[in-house]
């Protein structure tokens, strides 16, 4: 399980002349739940979007399972963006069909079970659902894939504490064994208990990277407390 799933070598992403990711070199390993932590503008979302294939690196190398980001890696990566991204006019049932048409690793039965447990009407259009329900539908679809890498960008940022618990429980219970989950968030206290590794970013570079338990033991405090200390304004 010590093979890297996501590898960055001198990865740089510029927005104009401003670097969002700056000469980043890091390996993220298989079978881990990794917390991608950092303040706003530290490069978390940019890194996730680069890995998902939504952005192109300005320089450097980014690979998923040893392959440059492209059609093949998209078959192995399950991505949840930080916004509503599913077509509002589609019904939940149609979304299930769409995912199963495009992704060979999509487990439609599992998705139906997850949505049924939440009491979501499959004939309802996506745009008519409440914000919390839309988040849950998106998460259910993303976690119903048997992917090698799950990229979750701020999955608990815009929901109430009860929904946060549900989302984290869903992630833990449904990700494929041996796969990697990369969760970007700044609500560290909520995700800390489930993290294996922590990658803290600042100004597009790594501030701290290692096993969560090791960091906690070394600092003598929780990751949340350490984060507040490191990034205090």
């Amino acid at each position, binding site marked *: 399980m010590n093979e890297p799933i996501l590898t960055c070598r001198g990865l740089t992403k510029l927005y104009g002349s401003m670097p969002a990711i700056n000469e980043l070199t890091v390996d993220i390993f298989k079978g881990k739940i990794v917390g991608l932590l950092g303040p706003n503008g530290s490069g978390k979302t940019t890194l996730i979007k680069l890995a998902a*294939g939504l*952005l192109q690196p300005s320089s450097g190398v980014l690979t998923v399972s040893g392959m440059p980001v492209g059609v093949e890696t998209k078959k192995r990566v399950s991505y949840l963006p930080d916004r*509503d991204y599913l077509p509002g006019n589609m019904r939940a049932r149609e979304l299930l069909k769409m995912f199963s048409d495009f*992704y060979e690793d999509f487990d439609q039965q599992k998705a139906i079970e997850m949505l049924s447990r939440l009491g979501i009407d499959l004939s309802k259009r996506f745009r008519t659902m409440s914000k919390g329900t839309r988040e849950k539908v998106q998460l259910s679809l993303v976690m119903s894939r048997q992917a090698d890498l799950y990229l979750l960008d701020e999955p608990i940022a815009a929901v109430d504490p009860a929904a946060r618990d549900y989302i984290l429980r869903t992630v833990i219970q449904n990700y494929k064994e041996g796969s990697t989950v990369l969760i970007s968030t700044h609500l560290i206290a909520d995700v800390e208990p489930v993290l294996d590794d922590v990658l803290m970013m600042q100004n597009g570079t790594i501030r701290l990277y290692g096993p969560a338990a090791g960091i906690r033991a070394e600092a003598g405090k929780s990751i949340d407390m350490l984060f507040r200390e490191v990034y205090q304004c």
Partner: protein
Amino acid sequence: MLGVCLKYETKAFARIMVPLILCFAFSWLFLAVLLDGSIQIIHSGNVLGFLLLITLFPMLLFSLFGIPVIGCIYSIKRYYDNLFSDKAYLMRTLPVKASTLMCCVVVNSLLWIAVTIGMILLLSAVPAAVGADGSLSAMIKGIKDFFTSQLGVAGTLSYLSSLMYFQFTMMLALTIASKSSGPRVLRAFGILMLIFFVSALPETSLMALFSGLKLVSAETGYETFISGYHGAISLGIFLYLYFKLDKHTEVL
């Protein structure tokens, strides 16, 4: 995956285009059958018939020119949505190349233009078929008469190539503007104007040159020249986008 993409794209286009085409088909048929497809109604003093004629005739014109325009604008919207809007977070993470997504939009825009033309051809024959003896020869004559008298083949081609030229130019402008984080549609419009201006210079120069060499004239058809010129630019933009899109589009 091309087939799956095409299926979803065609469904999306059909939601807009089928009701439009059916709406105008029924209007046209209504016009043709009720008024006996004849312009003689104007001279007959039938006020109701005349009112129906002047109400429904704009629909005929709209179906001729408007539906392909709507198809063209909708395909630009689909292109933008699929590649650059929030929906791109779904479409661009599917295991499909960006160029495949573009091709699906282009294929659909051509497909629906073809369907519209087919429908117009059929409908244009209805007045002749109803008004005359209803035979197949009358129908064919109706089609021929309609196109020669109303638009002409060169005119139709010129109109369609101009539409495609606008569509591809706008797609290129949106792609270039996608790099900016500001108001992209506005920026795209500015780029579009610039491309039109730049491409108009060689167009007028070539036209003047060809006219001077007597390669183009009013008899041989300026419209054919314009169709060819617009067609060539559209093809060039399509090939450029096809090969560069995957590396040059970003969802900011």
